[in-house]
């Protein structure tokens, strides 16, 4: 009797897809809270991004003569698109999304060989390109719904995204509806000599940070914990990142009180939680050795704090992640763990 010995690649649904799907599930609470505060713009960003990302992915795969179905159904482009969309201000113009995703999917991912090969985090490349090129468009966020912001209806939102703001609102209305993000705003105010505690008293702020942001961040934290529980990500990167960020904020705040943001403010503003649990943990572009992951997470936390405090960019997740991405091969190389049976340094 004859038996098969080959490993034919047919059949069997890949599990990479299920890993990616879990990430998407974990994002749901955050997306829901964001939509609640910022309205349709959030969902439009996500849906449109996913469509564009899949188109770019399909086009590049086709050009590279790679199987479309296998790679389109691995959900990785969808995860990239969703994370990318979450970093965009709601109601940003459609062409900005397209440019960002071109850099994310085509340049940062497919040029390196697609899934698994990209050294840089695609979503963050997309975002960084945009913030560098279109700081104006990327810096204006909606005012969250109950700090007397009027949230545009679905139709209004679609018009703004695809036709431009001026078709729906006049400049004054628009200016009233938008604001800099809390991280940006606090930084501006601190620079003017306003104390941090005073800034927190103004209308757009809640208990520890921006009125909407503290809830959004909590929702992402929840999703992140679920990912941890499911074993999709491990604890090292997020823990090291959050710990170093908070410690830095604590130490600097202790040296110069009230002219810096508080540790809690840092943790619950901007994309900190999203970054710690969903972005810095992108397995493909992060460190892969245990010690390397600690170094990687901690360095990201440190760079975030440095840029937020002394640099130009109000939120620094993207740049910190990218900077550490480029150190990954180096770190991985020098943090190879002790192999079973190697005499440990302790014993000598």
């Amino acid at each position, binding site marked *: 009797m004859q038996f098969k010995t080959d490993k034919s690649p047919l059949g069997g649904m890949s599990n990479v897809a299920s890993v990616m799907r879990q990430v998407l599930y974990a994002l749901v609470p955050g997306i829901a809270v964001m939509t609640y505060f910022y309205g349709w713009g959030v969902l439009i960003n996500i849906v449109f991004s996913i469509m564009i990302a899949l188109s770019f992915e399909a086009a590049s795969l086709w050009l590279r003569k790679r199987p479309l179905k296998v790679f389109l159904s691995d959900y990785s482009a969808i995860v990239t698109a969703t994370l990318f969309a979450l970093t965009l201000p709601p109601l940003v113009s459609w062409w900005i999304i397209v440019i960002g995703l071109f850099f994310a999917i085509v340049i940062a991912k497919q040029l390196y060989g697609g899934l698994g090969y990209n050294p840089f985090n695609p979503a963050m490349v997309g975002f960084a390109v945009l913030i560098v*090129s279109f700081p104006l468009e990327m810096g204006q966020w909606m005012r969250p719904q109950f700090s007397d912001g009027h949230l545009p209806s679905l139709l209004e939102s679609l018009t703004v995204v695809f036709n431009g703001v001026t078709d729906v609102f006049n400049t004054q209305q628009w200016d009233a509806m938008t604001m800099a993000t809390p991280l940006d705003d606090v930084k501006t105010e601190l620079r003017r000599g306003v104390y941090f505690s005073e800034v927190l008293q103004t209308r757009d702020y809640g208990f520890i940070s921006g009125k909407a942001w503290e809830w959004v961040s909590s929702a992402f934290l929840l999703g992140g914990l679920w990912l941890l529980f499911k074993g999709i990500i491990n604890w090292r990167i997020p823990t090291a990142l959050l710990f170093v960020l908070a410690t830095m904020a604590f130490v600097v705040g202790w040296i110069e009180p009230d002219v810096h943001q508080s540790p809690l403010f840092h943790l619950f503003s901007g994309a900190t939680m999203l970054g710690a649990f969903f972005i810095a943990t992108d397995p493909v572009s992060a460190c892969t050795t245990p010690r390397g992951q600690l170094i990687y997470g901690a360095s990201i936390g440190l760079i975030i704090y440095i840029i937020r405090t002394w640099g130009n960019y109000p939120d620094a997740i993207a740049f910190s992640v990218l900077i550490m991405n480029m150190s990954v091969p180096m770190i991985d190389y020098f943090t190879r763990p002790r192999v079973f049976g190697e005499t440990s340094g302790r014993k000598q």
Partner: protein
Amino acid sequence: MSDDIIEKSPKVNYQQLIMDGLWHNNPGLVQLLGLCPLLAVTGNVVNSIGLGLATLFTLVISNASISFSRHWVRKEIRIPFYVLVIASNVTVIDLLMSAWLPHLHLVLGIFIPLIVTNCSIIGRAEAYASRNAMLPAIVDGMMMGLGFMLVLIVLGAMRELIGHGTLFENAAVMFGDGAEFLTVQVIDDYKGFLLAVLPPGAFIGLGFLIALKNLLDGWLEKRKKSSVSVIPVAVENIS
């Protein structure tokens, strides 16, 4: 030592020299030499032309002088000697530019003195001029210079177009105040795409240019092969 061999060989293949400089061994796309100015000043076409010309002159003159004096130079002072020749040329060009094209001189900044270390020049000096007679050395310098300038201009145009939607902005800087008409607003009401004129844009742009060259080479190769095997007549016509 291989000096004499080449010296004696009667014919220099000028056609090959030309193709090497412009395409096959292009300093910017293939040898990857002289990258600093290539990336730093190609924010727009005008700067590209300015630096391209300066480099071209330097290459020709230094190739000529090095070829001329190649027999007297001892091995251990080879590099200082090249450097001396090139640096003198560059300084002269620097002075002339700052006298006659002050605006351009200002924009190009330290990248004019840095032509001295433009690796492609020393590279040519060592690899070609120091082993060949004057004439081929000059042709080589010219072609390498032209090839380099070509890349500078293409990259400059690409970045300016994508970054600002214009071409020949600041033409006045180079050609004098009358030349403003040269500036073309290619895309009206263009928002601008800053990345293209920032450092990352320079690298990525050059990356795409290199890829484009690879693509073209691939096509040419294929064409050549298929035409050779399928229609030999056509080959005769081409050559």
